[in-house]
């Protein structure tokens, strides 16, 4: 997964939070209120578009969606398999 992909996620978050200038790799996106439950489905759809597949969301794996590092290393890096449905 290219660095430009995670930068698209970062840019998307920054555009929604004009008062914020930087987001750390391990900053909790929910605790820091960069995203809340009402915005979350929009983030998930963006991630699915970038990953090129549907992403399964469970109480167990949701932690990976809460930081940019988790999104880069665990959400977007995962190859399509049992927990994902390819768009193709």
């Amino acid at each position: 997964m290219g660095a430009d992909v995670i930068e698209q996620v970062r840019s998307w978050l920054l555009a929604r939070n004009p008062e914020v200038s930087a987001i750390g790799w391990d900053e909790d996106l929910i605790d820091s209120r960069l995203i809340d439950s009402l915005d979350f489905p929009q983030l998930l759809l963006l991630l699915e578009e970038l990953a090129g597949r549907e992403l399964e969301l469970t109480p167990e794996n949701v932690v990976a969606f809460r930081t940019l590092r988790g999104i880069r290393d665990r959400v977007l890096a995962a190859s399509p398999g049992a927990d994902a449905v390819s768009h193709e």
Partner: protein
Amino acid sequence: MDTTDVVETLDKLVADSTDHHYSPYTRFDWVDELAEEQWWMTPDLLTVAGTRHARELDEKVLMRLSKWESVNFFSLNIHGIRELLIEVTRRIHTRGFELPSEFFHRFLGEENGHMWFFAQFCLRYGGKIYPDKSLPVATAEEDAAVANFLVFARILVFEELVDHFNIRMGRDALLHPLIREVNQVHHDDEWRHIIMGRKLVGLLYEPLRERGDRELRERLDLYLRRYITASVQSLYNPTAYRDAGIPEAFAFREELLRDPARVAHHETFFKRVIRFLVSQEIITGSPFREAVT
């Protein structure tokens, strides 16, 4: 607080629910299959309605889209019902909910039935239920009175949106009789839930209003207007577009959501509940007006 009016309404709703009780499991004659090439949803309720795509896409594609948007609509119902079943079950026969608990029994029974027949429809004719996109562990509201109000306000917004679609589709002669019937049967129960929902939302908001906490009221106003917007966004599902054979589904969704022609449709979907929430001074106005400016 005088609750005479609420008690009278509850008694009437419980009696009506008893009079119109039915088994969801035997209520419908499920056909073996529904042909893809037909209108599964009222064309004016599709997310492309009013946009150039409604004019430019081939009718076959629009019909296929109507199939997958109807599966998406019923899938959203399933996920919405799951939340309300959990939240109402959490509150039935607890302190503060003594009055509506008898009604809650009817409500939970009816909603369980609705969830079953919506799932039947999705699985029989779509082969799947679109997954829930909401955050599995939402941030908990620590103030119990605020949490109670928000739960029933969310349920009311959701039910009013769904009911608008059910009323339109329940009487749309373009649609297959089974599709009309599923929508009509849901509406026949849902009006009771909406009447009760309005009473409860009014009742639960009153103590919050009496606190005189302006910051709290502004927070609730903003949250509910954002919740209405999020509800309308959930109708635009890229997977449904892909299933209908529409390329570049995510960009297609973004384009539709930005299209000014859609604002009037969104206003219509939520007209009743926005009017109610504004009249109660719970929200300050329509979230869609801001989208235009």
